[in-house]
């Protein structure tokens, strides 16, 4: 039996069971419009689907029954024992046909004239029944079809219906709780082919499959050492079977996310009546499947957020109308797949968050200094919503989720390796976006090396990799022992993994590789010695004796049998003193621009300015630290300037005490507000530290905010906004120019690059890097897709492709590209395979460059070079 038919039988059996149960209920409550609507929909689904499958007999009966149900629902016909009996009789016929279909795989022969006639007898003379409301629901798919009396097949019917409507369970807030498996009904023989299995058994199976994966990995490594091994073929076979098995076992644990949504429509209905509001809940993507363990973990957070939307987000009907919105508030819950993860969005069209109110509250609670609050971007401001006990609701309503706040929501999401973000527009609504892994048991990880040890880092938390070489080494700043990396327009605080782990840490060893990690809304760089590999790893819990160590998220076993620790990025961010925020709920690293939000104070950069008192600026305002040779600094047009990235950067002495000729090179702190840039010439950068900034005395000197006490010394705070306002516009700041190894961005601008890789991780990693260089990047997920783009006439200036890909690998792609006549199109291969043989094979197939995957700078350089060769 093909899958489609099997699915149809299961679903129709469910639907018919539901029709029967609800018809019985209908006798007790003949006026229940919801109930009638539900019965109608079930019957309609059966009809629609059989039309799609060309089941003529079924469709004719179902159509007749549906028409009667439509008339009942629209009040054209009153519910009576007789009509209920006829519909039930039709249901019996349908079940009979379904049983025959299941046994024979085709519709059994038979004459349904009698039942159809009886059903039509209930209708008006023309035997038709129009259905407007349902048409509204389905109108995008097929205008007016339901009004047709024709019993002929209607193919688009079944496929066009949104699944949230045909799936019993999440039809909207008005849906009725109906047990899907009433059990024991003769009409559902297919139920015999499903089994209830104890979840523990599935968990055990999952563990065993995980073990098998590890053993398989070990075997593969062993056979790879010996190419002529007689085991090679069976190991390949084992490899395939293991992968299939693992996927099959994982599927058994997958459940539609709708299972976690079941109670939400009711919740929303209760909230609307309790709060005097009108709410509509739309649930999309209920069929999206994810691991049951994760499903359990997100249930409460989702409920909480829906409650928030309904209770705090959506305004009263009167307020909405006054604001020019429809009186009914919309809450949309949507789940979908995105690059190996599940994204869940909760959107409402309510009043949105008031950034101003949150700023005030944050100041009140001492989370941020008043003078800094205004400078925070809205994005940062909304982060406070996730602080413990932070609520902006003016009053506690009877239904609001007291005691549980967004901080708990975030902690729950982070515990399962997910991330949460919030966006809001005042007056327009709020969107909360949650990204979670598909399964907890297996994850993609980067294997990194420090000293002689390896560690696994979950890929979900890694944004990009930076290899530090002679070319970009100067971008690593050491400010009084604290390391920073100038990543485009941001100063990224760095943490050495050796130091985090208390291993030998020789600060003199240059930084080699940086993982740019994201925790909460903040980023930090994790310095490691080497980035070794990417792996699918099986996550095992940390033993009890090591559980207290917060920097570990789990353990895993590598292909060679070694046990390695999985790092917990949030834990590292928390335990690292440079980034720590003390509060155990705030598992986020504070980037320098955000460190000012620290409860203990604000991050300031202290420098010497040729005057006795030290001076300081807010670190959040600093773009970069530079040094310029004295001969490059010129006096022009009555001000100091220096050539900097193709622009003239105005330099402002940090005080009258600065003698521009006295120092060579001259340390300069660069500021940019996105439009203007300027450099503050200083005598030396002294320190970056956190301190409460309280202006003791306002300054009367232009360019100075006032004096404050930092580290026991009276310090003058420099007013950067004033200085920026003084300098003329120097052209828009282009972050891409700040990138290391960057060629001429103008040359890159508009050049189209096709980036081909099956790993969303690498696509996510490389496309921003290339985009930052000014390229127009298009991505493809395999060779075939890429080739058809090219053959379809899309023009690209270069193709950057992975080698190992499903469907069509990189080598085949290269051959295909050359065969298709693109002789001069530059092709760059990226691979984790780096043997000479592979390289030769790649070059022979037509690649112009063959690179290792991890070095972004090399990729950027190679792309620039191949493009240059072509234009030359």
């Amino acid at each position: 039996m093909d899958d489609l038919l099997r699915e149809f039988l299961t679903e129709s059996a469910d639907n018919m069971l539901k029709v029967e149960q609800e018809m019985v209920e209908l006798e007790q409550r003949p006026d229940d419009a919801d109930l009638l609507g539900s019965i109608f929909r079930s019957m309609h689904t059966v009809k629609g689907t059989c039309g799609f499958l060309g089941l003529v007999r079924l469709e004719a009966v179902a159509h007749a029954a549906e028409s009667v149900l439509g008339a009942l629902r629209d009040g054209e016909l009153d519910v009576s024992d007789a009509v209920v009996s006829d519909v039930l009789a039709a249901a019996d016929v349908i079940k009979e046909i379904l049983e025959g279909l299941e046994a024979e795989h085709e519709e059994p022969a038979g004459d349904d004239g009698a039942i159809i006639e009886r059903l039509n007898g209930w209708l008006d003379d023309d035997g038709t029944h129009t259905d407007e409301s349902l048409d509204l629901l389905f109108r995008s798919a097929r205008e007016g079809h339901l009004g047709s009396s024709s019993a002929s097949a209607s193919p688009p019917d079944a496929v066009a219906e949104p699944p949230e409507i045909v799936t019993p369970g999440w039809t909207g807030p008005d849906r009725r709780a109906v047990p899907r498996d009433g059990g024991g009904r003769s009409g559902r023989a297919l139920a015999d082919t499903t089994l209830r299995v104890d979840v523990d058994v599935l968990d055990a199976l999952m563990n065993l499959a995980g073990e098998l994966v590890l053993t398989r990995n070990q075997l593969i490594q062993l056979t790879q050492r010996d190419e002529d091994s007689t085991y090679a073929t069976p190991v390949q076979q084992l490899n395939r079977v293991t992968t299939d098995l693992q996927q099959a076992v994982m599927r058994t644990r997958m459940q539609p996310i709708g299972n976690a949504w079941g109670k939400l429509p009711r919740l929303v209905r209760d909230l609307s009546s309790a709060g005097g509001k009108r709410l509509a809940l739309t649930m999309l993507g209920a069929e999206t499947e994810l691991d049951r363990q994760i499903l359990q973990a997100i249930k409460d957070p989702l409920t909480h957020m829906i409650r928030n939307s309904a209770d705090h987000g959506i305004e009263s009907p009167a307020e909405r109308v006054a604001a020019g919105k429809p009186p009914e508030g919309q809450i949309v819950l949507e789940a979908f797949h995105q690059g190996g993860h599940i994204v869940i969005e909760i959107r409402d069209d309510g009043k949105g968050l008031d950034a101003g109110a949150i700023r005030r509250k944050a100041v009140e609670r001492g989370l941020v200094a008043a003078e800094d609050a205004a400078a925070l971007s809205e994005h940062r401001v909304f982060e406070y919503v996730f602080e413990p006990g932070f609520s902006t609701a003016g009053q506690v309503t009877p239904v609001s989720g007291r005691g549980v706040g967004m901080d708990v929501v975030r902690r729950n999401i982070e515990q399962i390796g997910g991330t949460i973000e919030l966006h809001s527009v005042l007056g327009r609504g709020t969107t909360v976006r949650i990204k979670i892994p598909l399964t907890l048991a297996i994850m993609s990880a980067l294997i990194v090396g420090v000293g002689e040890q390896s560690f696994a880092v979950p890929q979900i938390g890694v944004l990009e990799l930076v290899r530090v070489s002679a070319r970009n080494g100067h971008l690593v700043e050491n400010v009084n022992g604290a390391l920073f990396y100038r990543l485009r327009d941001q100063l990224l605080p760095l943490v050495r993994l050796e130091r985090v782990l208390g291993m030998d840490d020789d600060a003199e060893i240059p930084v080699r590789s940086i993982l740019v990690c994201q925790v909460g809304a903040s980023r930090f760089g994790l310095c490691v010695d080497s980035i070794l590999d990417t792996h699918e790893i099986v996550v095992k819990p940390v033993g009890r004796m090591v559980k207290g160590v917060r920097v570990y998220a789990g353990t895993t076993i590598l292909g060679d049998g070694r046990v390695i620790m999985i790092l917990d990025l949030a834990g590292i961010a928390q335990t690292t003193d440079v980034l720590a925020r003390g509060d155990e709920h705030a598992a986020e690293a504070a980037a320098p621009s955000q460190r000012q939000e620290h409860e203990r104070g604000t991050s300031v950069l202290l420098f010497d300015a040729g005057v006795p008192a030290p001076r300081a600026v807010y670190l959040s305002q600093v773009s970069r630290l530079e040094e310029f040779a004295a001969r490059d600094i010129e006096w022009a047009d009555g001000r100091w300037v220096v050539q900097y990235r193709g622009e003239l950067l105005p330099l402002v002495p940090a005080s009258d005490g600065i003698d521009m000729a006295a120092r060579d090179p001259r340390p300069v702190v660069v500021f940019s507000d996105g439009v203007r840039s300027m450099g503050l010439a200083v005598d030396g950068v002294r320190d970056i530290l956190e301190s409460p900034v309280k202006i003791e005395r306002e300054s009367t000197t232009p360019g100075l905010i006032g004096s404050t006490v930092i580290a026991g010394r009276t310090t003058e705070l420099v007013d950067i906004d004033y200085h920026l306002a003084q300098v003329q516009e120097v052209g828009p700041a282009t972050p891409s120019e700040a990138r290391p190894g960057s060629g001429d961005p103008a040359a890159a601008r508009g050049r189209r690059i096709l980036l081909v890789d099956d790993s969303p991780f690498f696509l996510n990693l490389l496309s921003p890097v290339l985009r930052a260089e000014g390229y127009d990047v298009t991505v493809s997920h395999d060779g075939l897709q890429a080739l058809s783009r090219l053959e379809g006439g899309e023009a690209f200036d270069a193709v950057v492709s992975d080698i190992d890909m499903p469907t069509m690998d990189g080598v085949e792609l290269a051959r295909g590209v050359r065969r298709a006549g693109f002789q001069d199109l530059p092709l760059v291969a990226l691979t984790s395979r780096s043997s000479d043989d592979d390289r030769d094979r790649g070059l022979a197939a037509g690649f112009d460059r063959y690179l290792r995957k991890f070095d972004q700078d090399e990729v950027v350089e190679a792309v620039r070079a191949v493009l240059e060769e072509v234009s030359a």
Partner: protein
Amino acid sequence: MKTRTPPATDARSVGSDGYVTLRLADQWLGIPVVLIQEVIAGGRISPVPLAPPEVEGFLNLRGQIVTAVDLRTVLGLPRRGPDAPFMNVVVRHADELYSLLVDQVGDVVEEGEAPLESVPRTLDPDWTRCATGVLRLERGLMVVLDVARVLGSDLAPAV
């Protein structure tokens, strides 16, 4: 890595109430045979930075992760030299596997061979905490360890 016949099997022939003797420095220790899952010589133990000092690291036992605990550290003895041979005595405790690292594993002493006496008060506090009693054997005094206390919560890092 060589797996010896699990002493637990041997133990049944001598009665399930015996003790496996362990050698640590020049001291004899005993662990009830029934608790021991298997004994493995050597093996690759991956160190875990920041773990409590007695945790030597993790060990891969046929796909299961075993916490290796250095008995010398627990009992306040000097650490083994880096190349000194050692044995893993694998025990299950509170649903997790642990390996107690010892210098050598000896024979099984039957329960009735000598009476279990209470722990002498003069014993080092580290030992007193982990011991249930002592046996006076011909070869010398054997301290019987309480595995739960060796791996006890007081050894777990402060959470």
